[in-house]
């Protein structure tokens, strides 16, 4: 498919599949609004469909009817392979050149030197915890969510932790094993041979005994921290920010094992009906203002360096707090494939999917 040659008039409409919290029009907090102005400026009316997991995003895009998707690394190449998204003409996006160099040619949206979208924001999967349960002794390791232990408040962590309800969470277990079982020889948490994979699943089976309910939806996780006595879980900075704003005793850290993370790309559907509006939106999202606002709201890092300075909501320390400088420590989500780079044969994603359902089901 050939990318768009030149920009025309807006079609008046734009529909986007996005992670919750990615596209705000001031309904939750009126300070966070990067849609209203865009609509006024371009006449493109934005509608958003949120998706809680990457798989859901892929499914929605396969089904069609959307223009854009904010795909994470574990979804983006699948979309490219499935020809669900089209290459973009960077020349039609004036702000392309302002993009952080680390992101400009990132492998999750570039295939054979062709770009399939504009970087949106990126961030780590942090360890969120309840400060009262940890009584001033913040956790240092992911072990609080993988192994049974007594927390500083004197009670066991059993039933009080959560884990992400997506197969990609297997990578978190692999990441933990990378640090704690070096003998397995894991080099990349997304590239696991049978033995490594089995060890990760075993670890997840232990975790199953500790988890009451897996988290699937950011808002429900917030609810569970408030009402279900959950005190620690892998999470997104988004939830941390929201709860802190509500004055909940919540904090987060990047544990010593490092973290997995996401770097998301705004990708254009192969059969988009509103490509002009879509290009306008991509351009819009690359403005330092929007980049800064999204980063502040979601607890993410901008893909445009300029956003780190002078954004009211993000503040000048924002980027540092959200880990802008830890880019290299984050193992970004990507889709596990059989033909992997670090070793001869890896367990492919479809097995992650079915086995993770099995683990949660108690197998």
């Amino acid at each position, binding site marked *: 498919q050939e990318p768009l040659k030149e920009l025309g008039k807006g079609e008046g409409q734009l*529909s986007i599949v996005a992670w*919750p919290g990615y596209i705000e029009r001031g*309904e*939750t907090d009126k300070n966070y609004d990067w849609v209203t102005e865009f609509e006024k400026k371009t006449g493109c009316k934005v*509608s958003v*469909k949120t998706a809680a997991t990457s798989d859901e995003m892929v499914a929605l895009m396969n*089904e069609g*009817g959307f223009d854009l998707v904010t795909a994470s690394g574990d979804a983006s190449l699948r979309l490219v392979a499935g020809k669900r998204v089209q290459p973009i003409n960077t020349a039609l996006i004036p702000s392309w050149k302002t993009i952080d160099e680390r992101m400009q040619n990132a492998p999750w949206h570039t295939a054979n030197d062709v770009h399939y979208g504009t970087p949106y924001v990126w961030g780590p999967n942090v360890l969120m915890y309840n400060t009262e349960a940890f009584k001033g002794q913040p956790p240092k390791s992911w072990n609080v969510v993988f192994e049974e232990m007594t927390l500083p408040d004197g009670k066991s962590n059993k039933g009080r932790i959560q884990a992400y309800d997506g197969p990609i969470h297997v990578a978190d277990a692999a990441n933990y094993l990378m640090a704690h079982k070096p003998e397995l020889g894991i080099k990349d948490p997304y590239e696991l041979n049978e033995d490594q994979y089995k060890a990760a699943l075993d670890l997840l089976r232990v975790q199953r005994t500790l988890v009451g309910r897996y988290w699937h*939806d950011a*808002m*429900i996780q917030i*609810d569970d921290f*408030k*009402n279900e006595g959950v005190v620690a879980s892998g999470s997104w900075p988004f939830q941390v920010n929201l709860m802190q704003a*509500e004055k909940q005793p919540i904090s987060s850290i990047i544990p010593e094992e490092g973290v997995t993370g996401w770097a998301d790309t705004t990708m254009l559907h192969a059969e988009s009906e509103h490509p002009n509006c879509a290009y306008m939106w991509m351009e819009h999202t690359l403005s330092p203002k929007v980049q800064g606002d999204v980063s502040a709201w979601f607890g993410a890092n901008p893909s445009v360096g300029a956003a780190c300075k002078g954004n009211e909501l993000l503040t000048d320390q924002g980027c540092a707090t959200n880990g802008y400088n830890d880019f290299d420590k984050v193992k970004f989500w990507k889709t596990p494939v059989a033909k992997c780079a670090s070793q001869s044969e890896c367990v492919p994603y479809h097995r992650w999917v079915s086995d993770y359902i099995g683990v949660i089901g108690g197998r």
Partner: protein
Amino acid sequence: MRSEKTNRAPLGLKIAAAAGLAFMHLPILLIFLYAFTTEEKTYQFPPPGLTTQWFAVAWNRPDVWAALTLSVKVAAIATAAALVLGTLCAAAVSQTRFFGRETVSLLVILPIALPGIITGIALRSAFSMADIPFSFWTIVLGHATFCIVVVYNNAVARFRRISGSLIEASLDLGADGFQTFRYVILPNIGTALLAGGMLAFALSFDEVIVTTFTAGQQSTLPIWMLEELIRPRQRPVTNVVAMIVVIVTFLPILGAYYLTRDGDQIAGAGK
């Protein structure tokens, strides 16, 4: 039944029935209670304070009105379609004899006896195969499919009660088929159709699962509620809406009861 006036229910039965009813209703009272709470972000128990402000807030929220209007429209049209199809089917099954008559009742029951998710997915994939875009009409189609059975059940039960000789009497007295329908059949099944229609409306009005699969971007009241419950802005507004729906539907339910009371029970109601 004649001596039952003098019979008293055994105490154990009374207690069991009362406990069952309490189980059914206490959570609903809770829903009502939270329509008045002053806390808007979480459902704190007991509520920190009580207020009636949410009624005004709900009244002024355009999204509430949009969802409500859509739901009413969908339910109304689905009910109308179910009324026509259900009545035709009931008339055919109860007034004539044909091969496969038994199968028809099975076919009519199927969309409600199969879990909604199956109906939903089946229709959804059929729509996308036939390249029908999701719209208001795809929702209506999905709803009408499982509403037919309620109308059908009510109508069949009533047809069974109209003695066959009533229709023959009309023909005998010189009324042709259409006159007989107009002057005898319709007046006699009217209340049953009304009751069936109301139940169909209620079913459609509260259907989430089938709607989830047959709606595009439209948001009916239950879809709106799902969104609100997962991503709350002003939580009590959802309760206000739920409460008002219950209260507003109170009278029609009572009406349906009195309309069909001395006839067949409105059995299988509200499926």
